[in-house]
């Protein structure tokens, strides 16, 4: 089951938006917690300050009681329903038994007891009265003796204002005695802080939503503008078909990254268009070449049949003879087309053998008709031809075709010059109607200077066949035109398996 097609553009918009929002989200959450911690830290510091003040203002009286100057601490009493700046406090003895506490507290369960070490502070979050989030600080300290007792005891050995019991208590009081250790817990509802955090929450949430929408729109706009050339190309490509391949993709505003792709694509499309045109042309020409003799032979037979008994009817012998000639020509066309096709499938058998170009040239010349032979001028250059490793039958076919071509397309009594080289030969013949621009078309299948096929034996496949054979022989053919003289130069490798570099003359 194939996966449905997805749009790169949509995927990119979604991915980028998600990635950016995720990054912003993580940063925002980080910032939020950082700020919250900073706020809590500040709140805790305030609580520690309050606790330190509390500890400073709390002492043991000489009568064994406890002195707390609460009014100097400025700790407001926590009132239910009014949490603004209010706090709890609770002081426990070394056994955890409450000594003093806020009036609003009802018992020992209001603030949990944490036996922390002396001089250390522990803070934590707490739901005050089960209603409002607050912060609580725990610490413990050793109760000092009341300041005034302390001072007097040091000034005079027997303070006058103290009773004997008090004096005895003061003298025996050991501040480091664990019995004098007390535990303090102060809780506060940091309403201001909480309000700030709520505002921070809302601000971050709204900013996050706006940021997400803006990011999506921005990313979409950027992706769209980035993808616009690609979309335009896709739209143009969508309209492309075998009949309008001649319209290339626009290269002007294409991004640099796509330019090589578009350039190559255009080159490919151009070649494809040319190939289709060539194929179409080839098919039309092929159809023409086959249809014409078929039409001739069919008409010949049907007219002959229709004319039986007619005084002006053609002599049956002539009819048969003409029919045979047409059939022979058809066979030749089909044979040549088959050979050209076989080249494509690499089915032609190649037999490498020691061959003399000179003798093949001579045999080809001998096979020509007498009037053509008299036009040939064969220059056998020194050094004499050496034998080369090639397929002599294919080479003979190449030479036959080239000589017949030279004879057919040059004035009736003009000379045809053949000269030799160590690994090739040159044929020169005058031509009256060939132009420089025609040279590239010479080897194209069915191409003839005159589009009409006036010569029954010429159908524009000779040089195509030569090209096919020379490709198999790993040879090369060049045509040049100068002052009305066509020079056809053929070069062959001395050994069949050598590469093209051996053809450099």
């Amino acid at each position: 089951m194939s996966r449905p097609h997805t749009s790169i553009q949509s995927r990119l918009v979604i991915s980028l938006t998600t990635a950016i929002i995720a990054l912003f989200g993580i940063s925002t959450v980080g910032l939020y917690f950082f700020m919250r911690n900073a706020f809590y830290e500040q709140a805790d510091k305030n609580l520690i300050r309050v606790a330190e003040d509390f500890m400073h203002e709390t002492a043991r009286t000489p009568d064994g009681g406890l002195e707390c100057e609460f009014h100097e601490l400025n700790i407001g009493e926590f009132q239910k329903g009014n949490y603004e700046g209010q706090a709890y406090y609770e002081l426990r003895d070394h056994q955890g038994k409450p000594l003093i506490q806020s009036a609003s507290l009802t018992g020992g369960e209001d603030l949990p007891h944490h036996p922390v070490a002396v001089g250390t502070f522990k803070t934590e979050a707490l739901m005050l009265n089960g209603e409002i989030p607050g912060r609580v600080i725990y610490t413990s300290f050793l109760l000092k003796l009341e300041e005034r007792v302390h001072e007097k005891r040091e000034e005079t050995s027997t303070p006058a204002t103290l009773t004997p019991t008090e004096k005895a208590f003061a003298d025996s009081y050991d501040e480091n005695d664990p019995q004098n250790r007390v535990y303090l817990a102060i809780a506060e509802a940091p309403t201001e802080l909480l309000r700030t955090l709520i505002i921070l929450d809302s601000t971050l949430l709204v900013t996050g939503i706006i940021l997400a929408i803006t990011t999506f729109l921005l990313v979409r706009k950027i992706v769209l503008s980035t993808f616009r050339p690609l979309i335009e190309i896709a739209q143009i490509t969508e309209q492309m078909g075998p009949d309008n391949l001649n319209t290339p993709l626009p290269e002007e505003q294409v991004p640099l990254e796509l330019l090589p792709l578009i350039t190559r694509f255009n080159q490919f499309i151009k070649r494809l268009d040319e190939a289709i045109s060539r194929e179409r042309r080839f098919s039309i020409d092929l159809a023409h070449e086959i249809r014409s003799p078929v039409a001739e032979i069919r008409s010949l037979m049907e007219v002959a049949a229709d004319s039986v008994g007619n005084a002006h009817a053609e002599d049956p012998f002539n009819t048969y003879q003409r029919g045979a000639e047409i059939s022979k020509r058809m066979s030749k066309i089909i044979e040549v087309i088959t050979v050209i096709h076989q080249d494509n499938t690499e089915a032609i058998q190649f037999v490498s053998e020691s061959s003399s170009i000179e003798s093949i040239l001579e045999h080809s010349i001998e096979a020509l008709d007498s009037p053509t032979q008299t036009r040939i001028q064969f220059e056998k250059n020194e050094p004499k031809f050496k034998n080369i490793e090639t397929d002599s039958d294919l080479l003979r076919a190449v030479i036959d075709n080239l000589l017949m071509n030279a004879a057919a397309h040059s004035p009736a009594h003009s000379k045809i010059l053949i000269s030799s080289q160590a690994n090739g030969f040159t044929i020169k013949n005058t031509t009256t109607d060939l132009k420089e621009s025609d040279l590239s078309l010479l080897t194209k299948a069915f191409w003839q200077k005159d589009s009409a096929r006036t010569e029954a034996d010429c159908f524009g496949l000779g040089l195509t066949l030569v090209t096919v054979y020379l490709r198999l022989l790993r040879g090369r053919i060049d045509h040049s035109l100068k002052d009305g003289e066509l020079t056809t130069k053929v070069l062959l490798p001395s050994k069949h398996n050598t590469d093209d570099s051996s053809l450099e003359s």
Partner: protein
Amino acid sequence: MRILYVEDSSSLRETIGRGLKNAGYIVTLAADGISGLDAALEAEHDVIIIDVMLPGMDGFEMLGELKKAEVDSQILMLTARASIEDRVHGLESGADDYLVKPFAWKELLARVRNLIRHRYGQQSSSLSIGDLKIDTQAQRIWYKNKELRMRPREFSILEYLALRVGKIVSRTELTEHLYDHAVDLKSNAIDSAICNIRKKLTLEGCDEIISTIPRRGYLMESRTSKS
């Protein structure tokens, strides 16, 4: 009827030319576009058959030149180029018909006859002049449902006169359309053929259908039979 056939393939030109002659047409043959155009402008032809791929001047060019010269012959393009584009191009350029090679001889002949009928404004292949009926397609003649035997030349004259019924046809016109240039215009070949046609018609009771208009020519008129 005079037909011009322009074809570069000598074999096909010769075969089709012979076939058309055997069918009773006067045929002029040309091997290339230029000589074909010269022949078309030199003499009036009922039908011109043109191959598209011609040396010198291709068939479409020749067609354009004929239209420019306002030659009113019926034109049949005969070619191996079978693509829709070529057919459309040929017909839009002014050709009256388009036939692709290879073709059946009988089809070509039928199309030529059809074009001739169109040239003379006939919708059907059957011509009726009173009780005389001529089937131009089958080349047969009936008078009161009895078939008459005519020679090819006699049939051609009768067919031509029937196509021009009610109009005077001069000897020159008949000669030009029905005889080769080799025929001497002063000879009595036309008169002799007309005489034979009249005899055959009179034998069946169909007389005075062809009148001689002194110094002007012949006239075929639709008349009701006396019997």
